[in-house]
């Protein structure tokens, strides 16, 4: 038990510190690297909660794809971060006061938080009984049966995102030299090689 508690504090503290570092780093590449560390620690927290599937997904999707994509974007775009930060102090008090107001509102909302009497039962209702199946299996059972519609709809959203990315970025440039394998394979000797009989003493012309 004590190990779990220690592990929790370790993951939580490192997660918070690295999250703060994401914001305060001067170099955006360092920010992304700290972000990856944050994701790893969040995954650790999920493992402690017994949600091993979510933890693995977090590592695979966020660290493996999203964070690496960020890294590419950050390195390729070469954004001048000092220019973006120029108005930072000027707008700081506006942002901070709005944030403060929102924080107070949130405190009011959650201070007086009430749940509807049936909510406890309803919340657990869709999921299979805990302990009966592993949580990967439980997610699968829900996602491919009760929520199949939502799953398919999410697939369509991703399809549109893909089509959109192609529409907005794909350009056909004329004059680009591409390797055309079929043409290379289909070349015959006769197309390219000419055999010339050179008579002695005349030379090739």
């Amino acid at each position, binding site marked *: 038990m004590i190990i779990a508690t220690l592990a929790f504090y370790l993951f939580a503290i490192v997660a918070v510190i690295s999250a703060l570092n994401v914001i305060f780093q001067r170099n955006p590449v360092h920010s992304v690297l700290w972000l990856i560390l944050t994701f790893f620690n969040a995954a650790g927290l999920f493992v402690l909660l017994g949600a091993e599937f979510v933890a693995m997904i977090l590592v695979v999707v966020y660290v493996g794809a999203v964070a690496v994509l960020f890294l590419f974007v950050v390195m390729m775009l070469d954004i001048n971060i000092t220019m973006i930060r120029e108005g930072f102090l000027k707008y700081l008090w506006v942002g901070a006061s709005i944030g403060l107001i929102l924080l107070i509102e949130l405190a009011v909302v959650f201070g007086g*938080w009430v749940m*509807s009497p049936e909510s406890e039962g*309803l919340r657990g*209702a869709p999921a299979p009984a805990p302990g009966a199946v592993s949580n990967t299996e439980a997610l699968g059972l829900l996602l491919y049966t009760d929520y199949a519609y*939502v799953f398919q709809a999410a697939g369509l959203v991703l399809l*549109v995102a893909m*089509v*959109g990315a192609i*529409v907005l970025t794909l350009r056909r440039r004329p004059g680009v030299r591409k390797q055309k394998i079929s043409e290379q394979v289909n070349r015959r000797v006769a197309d390219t090689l000419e055999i010339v009989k050179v008579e002695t003493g005349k030379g090739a012309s």
Partner: protein
Amino acid sequence: MTFEVSSLIPALPEIFLAVAGMVFLLLGVFRKEDSTQIISWLGVAAMAVTGYLILRGPASAVTFNDLFIVNGFTSFAKILVLIGGALTMLMINSWAQAAKTARFELPVLVLFATLGMMMMVSANDLISVYLGLELQSLSLYVLAAYQRDNVRSTEAGVKYFVLGALASGLLLYGSSLVYGFAGTTSFEGLATAMRGSETHIGVVVGIVFVIAGLAFKVSAVPFHMWTPDVYEGAPTPITAFFSVGPKIAALCLFLRVLVGPFAPMIEEWQQVIVLISILSMLWGSFAAIAQRNIKRLMAYSSIGHVGYALVGLVVGNEEGARGLLFYLLIYLFMNIGTFAVILSMKINGKYVEEISDLSGLSKNHPGMAMALAALMFSMAGIPPLAGFLGKYFVFVAAVNAGFVPLAIIGVLSSVVGAFYYIRVIKVMYFDEPAAAFDKPDMVNGAIMTLCSVLMLVYFVVPSRLVEGAEAAARALFLG
């Protein structure tokens, strides 16, 4: 758990449209060159088939584990969305052919956006609301930025995307608060949970966030800032698409969410909607006066129209819903017709967008001037044109429910609105003639004729249309 094929039947129109979209995508990829034309027409055909499937489908059903609902209301709204989608798809195609920017993804994206709208209207759960909304919005962001070499168009796309993502965030945050209160996201479950207990601040905040997210999508004041810029920057036929389908779908969704799961909280949300409605009507009228660009004018005009439609939502009863649906029906044809005219504002093949460019239209193209005059009078709500009846039904519903001040503000702001609509007519008929426009192409000519004639002669068959809206409203309140 067993699967029955019959459980797919209620969603057959959506499934058909989704499959059609994917087939067109493949067709476009394999045909490579100039398949936009054929895919556009096939897309219109697919929408027609979808409409037929909706009409022939079950009158009322719930499927996919209560995530998806079909009833008279959803069918009515979906037919409106499909008409808007099909007509604008033709306009987009003729524009793309003329402007030599045709790519086959264009009609496919319009198709997927329309599918998203249908899914929004049919959503019976906050999760399916969100996914429908995202499918629609994502397609629209791409469409707004379609002319990627044009700074205005890309700016429109980026603005729409950033603000739209923010609005989706608000909606999701609100939904999570509501879920935290009720423990469920299904509409029935929410309605039960809210009926059973007195109001709590947490759930009210959640509903306000949901309303803010939806108000952004219908571009109601104070969530309208993106509208004029996006309308002006996006290619004109795509603006036409923005101004009908998404508005209609989002307003229908607004209606379904507020009078469905949140109906027991009517006291709380009513004041919010009253405020949004009044602000939209006033801002839509006053800010439009200063506009010189006709697309910006249409943006403010659509903000105003959303304000009038929301009056029907405020009332929150069957009469109000009928008013709103009828308003949307009229609004659909008014707007598409007007955009068909705007798309015909071409001088030597170059598009012009200033209101002053319309001067002398009555001399050069008397037919087009007459069509635009009919549409503008209708927008201003002058009897006996169709636009008048649309406004009449929502205001009567408001008065009958005791919202007399709201109705008075509505009528007054529509008087202000009449000023700028009629100014367009004045420019056409009385100003010094400017350069003549090119002859409008066939599609736009046909659409503007159809819409303006509808505005003029609707009173031959008004009862059929009103009955349609009434049946839809009744189905909504039956549950």
